[in-house]
């Protein structure tokens, strides 16, 4: 791994692993592990949007949560501003939490239906800041205006808002404590295209104005392309490619990236599609060698036995493949 010394990462994962034990039998003994995140190292630079893509079950959401210490890591470190958040004690973590926030996919599931919107957005302020009720209210109004919500509706319940508006509430809440780093986990995936573009515009505007750093997890590649500075591609718990967005879309290095890009149907463009054979293997029992070798159109003998490591090729690009598509 050659993360260059000149890189100043706001958040960095170093050999992060997250295994979920599989228990079975009367004594529920551990019979195996689902290796959701398996030895991943990468960094997110200050002020950038790092897009994280991959199919369901590849571990991208788990990685996002481990980056915030919402899930503990089985092994490895996550360094945020020089500090390993997985060894921080509860008090330190409480301070760190103010710097890092998350926006979830389903705005209805992540907003308590029995809270008023003003309480939902104001709750982090109540917990972390010693603010009076009037101060909180003032800040809530400010935040709602910031995300384009009508602040006069702050004393209503989430069900009175549309899907796009609810996602704005989630964003306002995430911004309440002025965080530096935000994980957006499929934040626009549940939205219709016309609403999706509004929320994306908002996220880009906020990044510019507040200097935010995003980890943008999504499976919609066109959306990731639009918003990201760099993109990481995951497959079965591994990071298989990390590249600047333009490079990745112009010339994918990893065969899986290429397949993924070829699979997206786009109105107005007829292109050749690479159809993969078979299904994604189980992360509890990943294939030997390269994890993609069972489905890779360019597989060779070496791929079956030897696991390729993520290595730097061509400047700022990294790929985990013995035979990258250069």
């Amino acid at each position, binding site marked *: 791994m050659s993360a260059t010394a000149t890189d100043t990462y706001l958040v960095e994962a170093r050999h992060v692993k997250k295994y979920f034990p599989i228990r079975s039998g009367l004594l529920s003994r551990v019979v195996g592990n689902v290796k959701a995140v398996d030895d991943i190292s990468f960094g997110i630079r200050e002020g950038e949007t790092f897009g994280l893509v991959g*199919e*369901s079950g590849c571990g991208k959401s788990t990685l996002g949560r481990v980056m915030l210490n919402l899930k503990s890591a089985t092994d490895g470190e996550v360094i945020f501003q020089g500090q390993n958040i997985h060894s921080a004690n509860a008090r330190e973590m409480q301070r760190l939490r103010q710097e890092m926030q998350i926006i979830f996919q389903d705005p209805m599931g992540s907003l308590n239906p029995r809270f008023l919107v003003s309480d939902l957005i104001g709750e982090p302020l109540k917990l972390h800041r010693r603010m009076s009720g009037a101060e909180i209210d003032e800040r809530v109004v400010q935040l709602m205006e910031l995300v384009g919500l009508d602040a006069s509706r702050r004393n209503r319940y989430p069900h009175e808002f*549309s*899907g*796009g508006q609810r996602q704005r509430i989630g964003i306002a809440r995430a911004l309440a404590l002025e965080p530096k780093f935000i994980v957006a986990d499929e934040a626009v995936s549940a939205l*219709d*295209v*016309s*609403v*999706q*573009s*509004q929320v*994306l*515009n908002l996220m*880009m505007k906020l990044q510019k104005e507040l200097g935010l750093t995003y980890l943008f997890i999504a*499976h919609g*590649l*066109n*959306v990731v*392309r*639009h*918003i990201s500075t760099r993109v990481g591609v995951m497959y079965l718990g591994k990071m298989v490619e990390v590249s600047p*967005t*333009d490079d990745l*879309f112009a010339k994918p290095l990893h065969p899986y990236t290429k*397949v*993924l*890009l*070829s*699979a*997206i*149907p*786009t*109105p*107005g*463009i007829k292109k050749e*599609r690479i*159809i*993969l054979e*078979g*299904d*994604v293997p189980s992360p509890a029992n990943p294939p030997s060698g390269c994890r993609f070798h069972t489905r890779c159109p360019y597989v060779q003998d070496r791929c079956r036995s030897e696991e390729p490591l993520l290595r730097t090729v061509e400047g700022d690009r990294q790929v985990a493949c013995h035979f990258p598509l250069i």
Partner: protein
Amino acid sequence: MTQNLLEVRNLTAGFETENGFVKATDRVSLSLAQGQTLCIVGESGSGKSVTSLAIMRLIDYAGGFIESGEVLFKGENIAGKKQQDMMRIRGSKMAMIFQDPMSALNPVFKVGEQIAESLRTHKKLGEKQAWAKAVDMLRLVGIPSPEMRAHQYPHEMSGGMCQRVVIAMALACDPELIIADEPTTALDVTVQAQILDLLAKLKRELKTSILLITHDMGVAAEIADRIAVMYAGAIVEEGTVDQVFHNPSHPYTVGLLRSIPGLDGERGGELYTIKGTIPSINDLPTGCRFNPRCPHVMDRCLREEPPLMPGKNGQRAACWLEELPKEGA
């Protein structure tokens, strides 16, 4: 004039609520020729699923009903048919593929059994014949080792595999019409590519007509012959894929297409947005239903509702504009 396989005329369907009847579809007219694929695209709440349920007459089970209009299937109006008669048509002459394959399959029956059931019911096949045909169907939709897979339960299969089973089930009795409601939405892109490929193959080989409901313009462009765009319960534009995607003539279609971030060209810039939000179907604006959000709104749009009219480019659009201003925002 040759007869269309499916002809929907002025279909108004909806639900009775505390506040009276709510029209989920408003005078929808569609036609689908033999062997063709028609895609209905639109955002959530546009009425595309209700349209498909109404055509299948499954809307009766969803708490709604057809208020007026005709559904001509092979020339016969099925809008008023008894459910008992519909049962003979559904599954044999017309079949449906649903969005979520996991909930469309019964978890306690083997998948082979679930396919064989419709063959026994509709084709009156015997136990053994039906099972053999079920295995054939699994092979047709590209499931490896179908003899073994037929004995498995849905939970033993992946999402993409289950969707193949659902497609096999829909195809089992050689239906002339397949209605697929968001068949790939719950699937990952690489699996979606497999399923779209399969549908295209089936269409080619079996000449089945497909009515596909989707919110994904990319999927529609990939598989459709014709496209109908729905907005707030009505069709606002209808034409061939080329016409609708390359030369859209309704401002809503234009806005929708421009809202999607592309895979080439400029990125990172501000995305186009359609101002405002989709109106509630029980509180539609007077005149054109798109007028509060339309960048080209005129006086006439506020007063009169435009019908679907043939336009210059060959498609039909529900818009009073003679010609769309270029790149107007």
